[in-house]
């Protein structure tokens, strides 16, 4: 009966296929689906969880600087360069680099310089100095690390004043790893430079101190002759970071930690060119890039309008971005921005829109 033969053949073939598939999957369980060469998922962004910590120690490591010890239960581990968000009693949120010992899992140490309102302060450091006394409870988020220390055979650290805070754990780590390092530490006067004694003790003649009232600004000319394997880390005032970037050999960039001012509403007006649609919009001081772009392109995607969901992320073709989101990684910040909160850091932005 031909029908019977067909059925039998089909069943036999099915059994063979099943056996072959099983055997194949026995050796490679995820066969036969292909995988994306560079997986996107699986790395997380480490959303920052709020935690209550207790101020248990307060010291004055230099004039105008207070150091706080923040104790908490089961604090997450961190690496040199990390910072925490401090939610101050008034609700202000400020970022401070961790400058203690990463091995101390019971407490974080931060240090902050008092910046008076007349000098551009916006009340955060004043609140830290006046209200965070031992016994006070405060909320922190993080830590996060936007300034990680990559393994390198040699390092140059350039600190300006309170900018020593993220670099201090790096110096200690470089020393512990037996790496070749040197530190250039600038400040207004020795009395205002925190942790000076410690770094001098640690580094001896590898530490160059440039106090403005003694020797003026630090000499950075040596950076031009740096061997390619030396990594340069800098944290300090904008002027110092610009000077370091300018002194580096052609085509090389220092790793910088900016004192990020957490998003004040608005800013100044600037222009945004939408390259693909060939239009240019002006973003007034009191509106977001998103709002201005939507006038021209009503179908541009967005959602939370607070810089955390990422729906409005756009590719940046040119221009300096003042990133005010809480989502993008440094790699993503290189060529994209969240247009709902981030703005121009000065000058025109060009978006791929």
């Amino acid at each position, binding site marked *: 009966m031909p029908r019977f033969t067909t059925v039998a053949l089909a069943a036999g073939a099915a059994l063979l296929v099943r056996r072959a598939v099983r055997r194949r999957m026995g050796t490679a369980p995820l066969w036969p689906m292909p*995988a994306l060469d560079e997986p996107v998922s699986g790395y997380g962004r480490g959303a920052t969880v709020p935690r209550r910590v207790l101020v248990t120690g307060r010291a004055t490591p230099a004039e105008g600087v207070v150091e706080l010890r923040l104790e908490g239960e089961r604090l997450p581990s961190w690496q040199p360069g990390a910072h925490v968000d401090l939610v101050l009693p008034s609700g202000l949120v400020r970022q401070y680099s961790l400058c203690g010992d990463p091995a101390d899992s019971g407490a974080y140490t931060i240090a902050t310089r008092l910046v008076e309102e007349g000098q551009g302060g916006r009340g955060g450091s004043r609140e830290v100095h006046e209200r965070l006394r031992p016994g006070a409870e405060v909320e922190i988020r993080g830590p996060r690390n936007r300034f990680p220390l990559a393994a390198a055979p040699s390092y140059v650290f350039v600190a300006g004043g309170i900018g020593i805070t993220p670099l201090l754990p790096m110096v200690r780590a470089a020393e512990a790893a037996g790496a070749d390092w040197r530190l250039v530490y600038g400040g207004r006067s020795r009395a205002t430079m925190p942790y000076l004694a410690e770094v001098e003790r640690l580094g001896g003649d590898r530490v160059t101190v440039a106090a403005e009232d003694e020797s003026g600004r630090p000499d950075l000319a040596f950076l031009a002759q740096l061997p390619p394997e030396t990594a340069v880390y800098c944290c300090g005032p904008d002027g110092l970071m610009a000077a370091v970037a300018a002194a580096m050999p052609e085509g090389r960039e220092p790793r910088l930690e900016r004192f990020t001012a957490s998003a004040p509403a608005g800013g100044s007006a600037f222009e945004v060119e939408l390259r693909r649609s060939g239009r240019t919009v002006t973003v007034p001081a009191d509106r977001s890039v998103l709002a201005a772009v939507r006038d021209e392109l009503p179908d541009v995607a967005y959602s939370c309008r607070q810089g955390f969901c990422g729906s409005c992320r756009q590719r940046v073709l040119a221009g300096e971005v003042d990133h005010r989101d809480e989502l993008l990684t440094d790699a993503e910040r290189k060529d994209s921005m969240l247009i709902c909160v981030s703005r121009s850091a000065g000058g025109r932005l060009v978006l791929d829109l």
Partner: protein
Amino acid sequence: MSNTQPAPVASEHVGLKARKVAFDWQETPLHWVPGDPFTTHTINVLHLLLPAGERWFVHVYKQALPYITDDRLREDVIGFIGQEAVHSQAHDDVLPHLRKLGLDPTPYTAQVDWFFEKLLGDRTLPPGRARRWWLKERVALIAAIEHYTAFLGDWVLNADELDRRGADPTMLDLLRWHGAEEVEHRAVAFELFLHLDGGYRRRARTWALAFSALVFLWQRGVRFFLENDPNLLDPKASFADFVRRGREGVLPSTPAMLRSIPRYLSRSYHPSQEGDTAQALAYLASSPGANGGR
């Protein structure tokens, strides 16, 4: 024909917004349903599928925005996009923790990435009809998948047995925050599908595709986790295990899942007929991870 029109329940509509969340995984053990790796890993498959899957939802919906002519639906879709984007990130944040506990998810998630980014990605299509067809097809697929996410969301909000077994509170909070938002926005995907196309044949076809893909990926994910779990010696799993857990209430029950199939395929289906928005909002208002819904 009035009884064959999908009828939304008006009282179930709420304005949608993305909520900022944070979950602390430090204390979550590998087997977060104590002593029950099968249940743990069956639910863990969510963390494998959702990061890429919900990113894909967002990607597709951004392309659908220009075709929406109804303002309220547009607002809903915009809220939906933000919620899905945050879901994707929140589940992705669990994966490094699993890796730290000795269970590297990357071999599997790289395949899920391929599935959503390449297989279901934009393809190289001529603008016009072909591109619109592929967009509608994917919007319909999302509507079918959202039928199940809403089903699972409703289930997890009521899965008291997981609390009784001492399941990890952070993981339960993640699942219930996510589930509650799925219940909250459960009508959006279907309404967008109705708005752009709504054809019954497409609904049935994409349901069949979505359902088979989910079953295929899910059983594969459970087996992947069980086989690679460093703490398990005998990684056996069977459909019977699933049915039994469903009866015990730590996983969705098989009969309830089967009953949800004809509901989606009914011509008068509308997602607002299932689930309970008030319960979802009540959970969101108290969820620690969602900061009390603020």
